[in-house]
């Protein structure tokens, strides 16, 4: 039985392997663009100006193709090696090192450089980045942002609410999650609406990327979130500890309550017999 199953599986596996080999050249096309969208646009544009990282328009005129490929495969290694151009880039991005992208290999890096070259020649690249208004946000937009952050208004593509991992000031209740950083000053860290919008368009950290890859934040939701974060940053300060304290107290109270419930549920449980006999008989409170 087991043997026949394996035999039947063999041809299928062989076909799958062949398909993988055949699909490699197709990376030049759509796949490279998808890879760029998922991994690069939170920090880079092509012709849209600088975000956290530099604008990549015409990057192959600024650096050797070979250098670009090596940098893409492992940016940290290039910096560590003391490469002059890498150091300059590091200064320009105020110390933010480009992360090593998972799934990056020389073939894929070549494909990406080809893609950037192709996109640079276009009048308006598809990766020009989000264009975002400069007008002051209205109170209604800030409020919508707050609702999205708190999860009162669910994200259109079913992404998780910000609150589940992040906290911010004056969220009310038990405050937000502690898994991710406090976002009260996120706007200051990202410096501009544009950078923040790019980030939200494709969150690139190892924790957020897999979560939001399949449930991206809709472009209409990005604006209110930025409004909310800008508003938070404008007021200054960090998340007050009131939320954390409430959380601690509720946790302690809950644990205490559970102990009471357990004690009631097992109230007729066996307790030490001998010790009680001794204590009650001697009346001295000692054995």
């Amino acid at each position: 039985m087991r043997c026949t199953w394996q035999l039947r599986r063999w041809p299928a596996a062989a076909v799958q392997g062949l398909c993988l080999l055949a699909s490699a050249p197709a990376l030049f096309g759509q796949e490279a663009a998808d890879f760029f969208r998922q991994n690069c646009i939170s920090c880079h544009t092509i012709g849209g100006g600088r975000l956290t990282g530099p604008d990549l328009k015409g990057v192959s005129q600024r650096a050797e193709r070979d250098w670009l490929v090596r940098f893409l495969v492992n940016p940290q290694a290039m910096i560590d090696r003391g490469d002059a151009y890498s150091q300059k880039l590091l200064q320009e991005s105020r110390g933010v090192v480009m992360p090593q992208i998972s799934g990056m290999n020389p073939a894929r890096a070549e494909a990406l450089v080809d893609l950037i070259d192709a996109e640079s020649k276009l009048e308006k690249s598809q990766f020009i980045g989000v264009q975002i208004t400069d007008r002051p946000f209205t109170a209604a937009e800030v409020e919508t942002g707050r609702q999205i952050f708190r999860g009162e208004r669910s994200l259109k593509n079913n992404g998780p609410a910000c609150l589940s991992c992040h906290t911010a000031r004056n969220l009310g209740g038990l405050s937000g999650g502690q898994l991710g950083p406090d976002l009260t000053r996120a706007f200051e860290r990202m410096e501009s609406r544009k950078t923040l919008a790019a980030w939200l368009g494709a969150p690139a950290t190892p924790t957020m990327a897999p979560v939001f890859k399949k449930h991206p934040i809709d472009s209409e939701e990005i604006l209110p979130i930025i409004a909310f974060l800008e508003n938070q940053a404008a007021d200054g300060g960090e998340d007050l500890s009131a939320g954390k304290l409430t959380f601690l107290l509720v946790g302690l109270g809950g644990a205490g309550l559970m102990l009471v419930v357990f004690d009631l549920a097992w109230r007729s449980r066996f307790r030490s017999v001998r010790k009680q006999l001794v204590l009650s008989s001697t009346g001295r409170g000692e054995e």
Partner: protein
Amino acid sequence: MNVRSQVSMVFHLDKCIGCHTCSIACKNIWTDRKGAEYMWWNNVETKPGTGFPTAWEDQDKYNGGWACEDGQLRLKSTSKAKTVFNIFHHPNMPTMDDYYEPWTYDYQHLFNAPEGPDQPTAVPISMVTGELINIKSGPNWDDDLGGSPIYAEHDPNLKGLSEEQRQQLFAVERLVFFYLPRICNHCLNPSCVASCPSGALYKRGEDGIVLLDQNRCRAWRACVAACPYKKTFFNWSTGKSEKCILCYPRLETGQAPACFHSCVGRIRYLGVLLYDASRIEEVAKSPAEELVEAQRSIILDPHDPAVAAAARANGIHDSVIESARRSPVYKFVKEWKIALPPHIEFRTLPMLFYVPPMAPVMAAKETGPVKNVSDDLFHDIEEARVPMRFLANLLGAGNEGKVRYALRKQKAVRWYRRALTVGDVSHAQAAEMLAQADCTPEEAEAIYRLTSLCTFDDRFVIPPMHREEAIEMLVDPLEHKQNAGFGFLTGPRRGL
């Protein structure tokens, strides 16, 4: 009628001198291993006293044994649903403090101590932590009424005694106690077997010995909580529970169990009983006062041809039936009715019976030396220092009549023998006593012989176990003809 055979025991409490030889014999053979330090498959307790573990008889606390509710027998400690809900914590588990923390002594210190002004001593060391300990309890902590105000005065059997009776029991000049040796009762309706979630415990079909399969035990310890006599123990080293095995390897080779064999007072009797297994549930559900009589009724007369035929039909070998006919246990329990089960109100139907002790007459101290209340050497049993109520709580499920009957018959036998050997009691007087105690001279003679002049073979009528036939059901002996034994036996793999 579903006739089965059971190896049963009688302990004659009137003969027990409380020497603990039985406990030591058992300890040396079975429980001097790692993890078994605190186990006493056989122990001897002082009554009144709380025993081992402390106050084991108090089922309001320990929740062992069966409860009969709405005509249904239910385990007090667990059920199928409770097994799930208490999966991480069994609420009825005794603690180590209720047994005792086992210890040894630092004997090396006696030899290695540096020279000093004092004699070196061997200080006690915990066998659990290895640290010095201040011993707070032991396996026989309340021996001979030690620590009475704490232990003996809280004996659960004192329930129902008047305040005056209690005070008399512990008044300095009137103190009385007797000994209660205890092993596993190998019950007919064992709650340990019923409670085991793994099915590791079983009652051996051919002789009724209750055993615990070390390979199937999964350390639930439900048996420890369920046994009202607290005679299953958990071995922390192997991670398995253990209990008295009635020395079945000895029985199978025709030897008495170690505690029986070594008994100095010759208080122990062992023999086969035939019983009707189809009535176990019905008997276990009887009202408390009728339990002793109901259990007697389940024991069948091996001399009855119908019983013998039914036994044979059930696969009981002729030699076992023959052994049952000579069983001393059958005589004590069924013919003479002077042996009683301990705490049968736990409804496990214990198959170990006790002959209640003849306590000395009540003495009172007036001015001067102690004065006997009665001048009769064989006084009225109602005036005995141990109140009838106490014995009835221990051995009669509260039924004083059963204990009184057993004591009166023993007393009558003494008067009868006194008339024969000393002559200060008239034969007529002795005959009248016997008649009052529902006893004939022949019976009195038999009781006297089995009590006082019993030989090894009188006390232990061990049935042939026929292991050579029993083993054929599991393996073919011819396959192992060239081997020694039946192959490898492996030790349990779980545990520390």
